[in-house]
Structure formats: C-alpha cells, structure tokens
C-alpha cells in the first residue's frame, strides 16, 4: 500500500465477508425447503429467503467492487483519496440501506421484481450512495497524476453500472415492459458493465502479480471489453425470446449470445498467457490462485454454461427452470465472487503488513469453495435437466416433478457445505490478518 487512504478498502471487504456469510445462511434455508424441509415457512417463507439471498449477493459484490476501486484508484492515479471521511460515510450508509432492505423483506416490504426487490424509496438512497462513491473516485482519478487505461476501464464500468440502475426505477403498468427494462439493469450489468469492472480489476492484478508490461496487458484489456460489449449488448436478446416481444430477438439474441463466451474465453487465455509470460514470481500464491481461478471459472460458468441454454430452441424448454439456477451459481461465483476474492487476497497483506502469502488454510479455502460450487452446479444441472424433461417434455405436473427432484437437493446441500467450509476458512484467514495499519505503507508497493 502506498497511500494511507487505501486503508478504507479493508472495511468494504469486511462488509463483503459479513454479507456473504448471511447469504449462505439463506441459501441453505432455500435448499432445505426444496428438499421438503421448509420448517421456517412461518418466519422466512421461500420468497423472503430468495430475495435476501440474491440481494445480499448484489450488495456484497458491489461492496467488493467499491473496496477494489478505493484500493486501486489512488495507486493508479498516484493520489490520496480526496476524502476518506466521506468514504466511511458512504460505507456505513451502504451497509444501512442493505440492512434496512433485508429487514423489510421479512415484513413484506419489497417489490417483487427479481433482483430489483429494493423498494423505490430506498432506491433513491442507493442513488445518493452511489453518487457519493463515484464522486470520490472520479475526483481522485482526475486530480491524480495519471489516468491509466486500467483505472479508466474500472471507473467506466462503475459509472455505467450506476447509470444502468436507473431504467429499473421507472414504473410500468405492462408486465412485458417491466421485464424488458429490468433486463437493461440485470443483463447489462452482469453481461456488460460488470465485466468492465472485472476486466479492470483483473488487469490490475495481472500487472502486479505477473510483472508483464502494462502496455501489453492494457491492450488486451481493450480487446476483451470490446468483445464483451459487442456480444453482450445485443446478447440481451436472450432475455427477450419469450416475454411478449417480437421474434427478431430470437435471431439477434441467439447469434450474439453465442458470441458471449468469447469474451470470457479471451479473459481466461489472457490471464493464463500473461502468467506464463511473466518473469516476476510474486510471492502471493493465494492471490494468484484466485486470479487464474476467476478467469477460468468465469469462462466455464458464465460463458459455456450460459451458452448451454441461450439457443432459442433450447431456451424454449429450459426458460424458467432450475437450469437457470445452475448457470447462475457458477457464473456469479466464477466471474464476480472470485474476482472480489482475488483482489481481497492480493490487498490484505499490503493493507495489514502481514505477509501470510502461502497459508495452507488460504489454499484450502480456494479449492474447497471452488470444488464445492462446481458440485452445486452439477446438482442444479441434474435437477434442472430432469425438470425440463419431466415437466416440459413429458408434461407431468410441476409439483409431482419437484418431489422427484428432492434427492438432488441433498447432494446440493452436501456440496454447499463444502463450499461454505471454504468460505469459512477464507474468513478465518481474513480475521487472522488483523486490521490495516500505516506501518504497511511502502514506497513501491509489491
């Protein structure tokens, strides 16, 4: 760490750990309900657990991205963060809005719009919060000495993510319109601007870890984010196949979705080749594992498993089944969960001054969580494909099919336990690092 103000990142990462732990609890509640044990129905019905589970995911990932920006931008721009105080205010208000929203979900205070359940009055607080964050980042960046491509791509991703939140705040009477614009937020986030954020963080990590020349890495960063937008923007069409808009989207969505894995493939090849090319052997093995891990897992989860059901002919049968949950879990974990873990693993030794570079628990955390999530993906996939055949092809009743699927959720819970053990070990390491301190300041950061 080269700038004192970078320390604020630590607390955003701490919030990540806290919210992720809660997210897991609600995940288990849902998995047990799928198995037939919905004993908590009276207090936490499925729709509450579901809204909490997905919203916690969004908030902890955003908190991770913000922490990453607070760490990366001062260093790239060679400038202290303009106001550390405001950054702490922003952190606390982010946590508060999240907590209020989640408590509200337990008392029927929400909007039933998948992923965007936060009620509109609270949306305005989110807007103020994000504007504060962007203000801090933008002023720090443009008052700084340098505006590197990495920091510009990262910032551009954050600005667009904020702008794209707005279409989700418009009221529509027509369910089709509502859905149409909801995807402007959700799809253009996860298959568009979030990939810019991911690309920016990944480029930063590769520059630091592999020591490959910045110019080379940033050139390929442009190619990757170019591929992301060229395929991802029109790829939104795969959400428009069957919601009440025209058939043109079957063609447009089908073709461009098929190109979407290319961006992730490029990301994976990019990370691996830079690693092989790099002469510097950075001692932080854990950060290296997560960095290569995110590049590869996102290709499988977001790229390939997405492609598995974006062809319109396939999606006709898989749309609205557990197949979506199969893709969703590995995609979010591989692309976004793991990149946040990568940046946390890289920054922790620099923030705290403790060099726990190669701990056994750290590596175990990586393997248990990643293999656990792969196992969960297989369990969801088996359940999903079975559901598709029994319900959509053979025509059995929804409820009868769900009873047949219960056994797969037992396997899911086993794998989720493995995943959670990995997360638990990661959090154990996180706590063991201790707090960030000024003694960790160095002239030239590793």
């Amino acid at each position: 760490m080269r700038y004192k103000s970078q320390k604020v990142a630590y607390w955003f990462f701490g919030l990540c750990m806290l919210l992720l732990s809660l997210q897991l609890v609600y995940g288990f509640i849902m998995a047990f309900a799928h198995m037939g044990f919905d004993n908590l129905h009276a207090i936490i019905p499925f729709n509450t657990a579901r809204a909490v589970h997905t919203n916690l995911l969004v908030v902890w990932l955003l908190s991770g991205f913000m922490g990453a920006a607070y760490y990366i931008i001062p260093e790239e721009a060679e400038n202290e963060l303009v106001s550390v105080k405001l950054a702490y205010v922003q952190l606390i208000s982010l946590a508060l809005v999240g907590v209020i929203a989640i408590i509200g979900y337990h008392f029927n205070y929400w909007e039933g719009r998948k992923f965007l359940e936060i009620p509109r009055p609270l949306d305005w607080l989110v807007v103020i919060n994000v504007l504060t964050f962007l203000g801090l980042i933008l002023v720090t960046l443009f008052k700084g000495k340098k505006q590197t491509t990495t920091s510009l791509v990262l910032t551009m991703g954050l600005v667009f993510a904020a702008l794209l939140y707005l279409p989700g705040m418009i009221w529509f009477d027509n369910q089709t319109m509502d859905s149409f614009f909801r995807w402007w937020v959700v799809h253009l986030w996860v298959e568009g601007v979030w990939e810019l954020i991911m690309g920016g963080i990944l480029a930063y990590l590769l520059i630091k870890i592999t020591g490959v020349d910045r110019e080379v890495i940033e050139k390929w960063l442009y190619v990757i984010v170019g591929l992301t937008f060229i395929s991802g923007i029109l790829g939104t069409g795969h959400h428009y196949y069957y919601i009440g808009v025209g058939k043109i989207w079957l063609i447009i969505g089908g073709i461009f979705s098929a190109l979407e894995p290319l961006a992730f493939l490029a990301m994976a090849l990019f990370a691996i080749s830079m690693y092989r090319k790099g002469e510097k052997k950075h001692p932080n093995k854990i950060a290296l594992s997560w960095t290569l891990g995110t590049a590869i897992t996102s290709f499988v989860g977001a790229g390939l498993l997405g492609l598995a059901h974006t062809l319109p002919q396939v999606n006709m049968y898989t749309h609205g089944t557990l197949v979506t949950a199969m893709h969703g879990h590995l995609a979010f974990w591989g692309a976004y969960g793991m990149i946040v873990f990568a940046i946390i693993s890289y920054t922790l030794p620099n923030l705290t001054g403790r060099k726990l570079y190669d701990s056994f628990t750290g590596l175990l955390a990586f393997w248990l969580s990643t293999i656990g999530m792969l196992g969960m993906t297989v369990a969801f996939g088996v359940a999903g494909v079975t559901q598709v055949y029994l319900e959509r092809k053979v025509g059995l009743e929804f409820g009868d099919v769900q009873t047949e699927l219960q056994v797969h959720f037992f396997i899911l819970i086993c794998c989720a336990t493995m995943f959670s053990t990995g997360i638990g070990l990661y959090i154990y390491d996180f706590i063991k690092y201790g707090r960030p301190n000024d003694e960790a300041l160095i002239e030239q950061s590793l």
Partner: protein
Amino acid sequence: MLSKSQARAFFLGGTIITFVIFLGLSWNSLSNEVPKQTHVENLTAQVVQGKHIWESNNCMGCHTILGEGAYYAPELTKVYERRGEGYIKTVLTSKTPWSPRGRKMVAYGFSEQEANDMIAFLKWIGETDLNGFPPKPNLKK
C-alpha cells in the same frame, strides 16, 4: 500486430455500433410489438391493480411469470387457462397455507376484490403472445 490504439478503437467502435442497433431494435419492440403482442387495449385499471398486488407480495420470489422468477412454485403465465377462475380464487383467499404435495404457499387470505384483481392480471397475461412459450409437452403419449 494489433496496437493499443487499434484495440481501443475496436472497443469504442464496437460498443457504439452495437448499442445503437440495440436501441433501434428496442424502440421497434416497444412501439410496434409490445402493444400488439400484449393486447394493451385489454390492460385495464383492474389488471394494473393485479400487477401491483403481484409485485408488492413478491409472487415472483417463488413462482415464475413469463418464465421469470424463482422456480420454487409453478409457472403462472397460463394458469388462468390451466386452472380456471374458481381454483385460483380459492388459493388466493385461503387463510391457511395452500400446500399441494406438501410445498407451502404463504396464506395471503386476499379479499374478494384483491383476488379478482389478481385474476384479471393473470387472465390478461395469459393472452400475451409469447412466441410459443410455454412449449407443449412433445413426448406426451
């Protein structure tokens, strides 16, 4: 070999072109296709009220509609056609959790009026032209 400025041009150019096409297609969908395919002439105040009830109780948190939602409870786009008004009303007004095959639904205990609004919404959405979704089971004997 590709230079950094060429790479940047690829990124900016590609993004702008695809985004303009996307906006054009979206505009076409919203102004020409949605009114026809969703029969906006049938979108009455009661249907809108039904949608409001649908949203404020997060029905999508268990069910799916237009194939979007949570996969814990049945897809409801065609439920009006499948179950009919009487069945739906019984479920919506029930004071105890509706639990076919053991999987429980929250007992909303809606009033007659609220149930009618929701039924109007479900009837309207059932008539939407969804390009063939949900598919007819084709392995059924």
